[in-house]
């Protein structure tokens, strides 16, 4: 079965009616997370998949906190909560992990 050709054959056969089993419906499940090197935000020490500490403290009714509390990646590829980083850069415009000057590479969406 690991054989390429056989897979190809089976792929084609999937449409043939005389096969004993045919896949009709498939409910797949996947888990998403931020594509980060380190699971924890170095500033608030909460996992980046969770809302940052300040957002958690505030969001009693805002139950979908994640949409507001996204992850930001610097050019250095280090990542933090966007909330945490935007407060951090007000005092010190360097990455708290590598001390490189901070500039945003991309934002989580």
């Amino acid at each position, binding site marked *: *079965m690991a054989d390429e050709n*056989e897979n190809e054959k089976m792929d084609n056969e999937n449409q043939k009616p005389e096969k004993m089993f045919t896949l009709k*419906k498939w409910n797949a499940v*996947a888990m998403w997370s931020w594509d980060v090197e380190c699971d924890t935000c170095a500033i608030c020490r*909460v996992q980046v998949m969770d809302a940052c500490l300040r957002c*958690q403290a505030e969001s*009693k009714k805002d*139950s979908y906190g994640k949409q507001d509390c996204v992850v930001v990646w610097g050019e250095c590829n280090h990542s933090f909560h966007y909330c945490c980083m935007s407060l951090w850069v007000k005092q010190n415009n360097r990455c708290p992990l590598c001390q490189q000057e901070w500039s945003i590479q991309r934002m989580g969406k």
Partner: protein
Amino acid sequence: MEQTNPKANFSNFPINGVSRNHVVTIMPVPAKKLVIKNLKSTPELPEDYMNQTWKKLKGAVVAIQQSKANQYSLEELYQAVENMCNHKMASLLYKKLQSLIEVHVSRNIEQFVAESMDRYLFLKKMNETWQAHCQQMIMIRSIFLYLDRTYILQNHISSIWDMGLELFGKYILLNTLVQTRVVEGLLMLIEKERQGDQVDRSLLKSLLRMLTDLSIYNVSFEQKFIQATERLYAAEGQCLMQELEVPDYLVHVDKRLAEENERVLHYLDSATKYQLIHTVEKQLLREHVSQILQKGLDQLLTEYRLTDLGLLYDLLSRVKNGIVELCSAFNAFIKKRGKTIVINPEKDKSMVQELLDFKDDMDTVVTKCFHKHERFTNSLKEAFENFINQRTNKPAELIAKFIDSKLRAGNKEATEEELERLLDKIMVLFRFIHGKDVFEAFYKKDLAKRLLVGKSASVDAEKSMLSKLKQECGGGFTSKLEGMFKDMELSKDIIQAFKLVHTSNKKLSQIDMTVSILTMGYWPSYQHMEVSLPEYMVKLQDVFKEFYLNKHSGRKLQWQPTLGHCVLKARFNSGPKELVVSLFQSLVLLLFNDCDELSLEDIKVATNIEDGELRRTLQSLACGKARVLLKTPKGREVQDEDHFKFNAEFVNKLFRIKINQIQMKETTEEQKATEERVFQDRQYQIDAAIVRIMKMRKSLTHNLLISELYLQLKFPVKPADLKKRIESLIDRDYMERDKENSTQYNYVA
């Protein structure tokens, strides 16, 4: 003692027990005007008038005393009295009348002191004498009414009626011997009645009235009566507490109290009531409260005897501290009984149902028997909270599982209203749980299964349960659970968008694919497994992944094959069927499109499914109810050397057949992992709560912060742990110690 009115007057008398009929026939027309005649114009009187008139009156009095017919008309006698009074003979008349009565009364004493009469006869005799005295005095008084209303009134001396009473008392009842005999006779009668005999209540009533009228009820009777009561019931209480079961004892006490109340109603002076009832309560109840509770309460509650419990409450509420002691015994029972429900792992299966039933029963007891007394409602809550937390985590877990069983599809035992009511009841139990986050972790696991496999019975019920939890614990508690629902909705949108883009792709449109995209952190964490899919499935996955990551930059996707499930079309000799199976089951079955027979090892290599998981999968396909594969050799377990074949002869009534994956028993490791995560989450929650509080208050002392935290946190936590988190937040510059007051913290914005 109210019996201090010695001037019990004439008009009162009939109430005292003497029949009025006699009186009416003998009474003069009462419309006589009271005329005080001018004494200056006193008419001349014949000589010897006084003697003549008195003789007439004396004759009349003696006739009354001897119950003989009267020679003169009442009017004539009345006039004679009036005349004598108007001729200054009133004083004389009074004295003569007094001595006449005195002679008669004093003569009566002899019969009571002389012979040693039978007690009952003695009382009868006494009553007759007394009744006769009263009747005579009424008649005499009606003749001498004028004297009563003029001379006696003006000179403030005893009225004729009172004079009679005084004389009766002086000559008869104040005789120690006679009085003792009367009182002892009365006490004997009452004792007999208490023993269940019928006694002459009117005799008792009349004689007790006599004592009251003579103002000796209190001194001569009441005190001795109370003493006798006390002695009797002290002994009875001691004895019956030993002899009777508590419910029977209570019924007996209730009967005694009713009897004694009747006694007051029928013949005792009403002023005796308080002391009497109090004495009975003290001897039959107060003295035995702790023994009654010790000996009987558990039984009554266990056997759910509502009537007896109601009686117990009513009786104990009559005595000092009765309710307090009942309540603490009630509390102790709930804790003891509740602990047995909660503590024994063998009873875990039925724990929640038993808790619900137990709570229902105890609620009913409080409502129906204890009059919803606040002390009991509070005590009930306290006791439940206490015992349910005697076992850490397990009740929380089982409550979550119980809810799952009710929310899962297939649970058709209840209507929506019934389900709603049941959920409300479960929420009451949930409220008592200290580790609410443990509940959340297990609830989440089950919710995930319901959502992913589409097993949820009703979206409304799910939402309703969620809003109950939110109401109870706040939005922070349910945010992740809500996130799970949100994920399911977003997944639907995404797959729709995906299908719209890829309609033209023929291969994709062959298979109806849906993808549930779960946000890591909202959902339980699942063990990751790599398996080998047929290439066309891998391609499908890849196309979708690309589409998704295009929309959501910065994310990564990890497939969860353990959670996937499929519908397969199958062709058996008996005709086509549809099989509802897990992804693993599908992967195994699809292999048989190309091979007739495969060994365990072949399948393992082809699918790359982990050994244990694979064996369970094969077991479900070849050894379960729906055997779509044939195993050689046959057997319940899958062995290393087993071979498998497609079962073309498979038959089943149904077209669509669900083949259940055999669930691995939740291992202790998994259990531990769940608890570990709960513990980890607690750290975050404590941090968040501290920051939340500090942000609002700006500065707080250590103690105030700690006490606010205890109000907010939904799980048990030690002060030392809170201290650690505070230190950690100070390290991270979320807050700082005040420079002047080291026990105070300030928020750092």
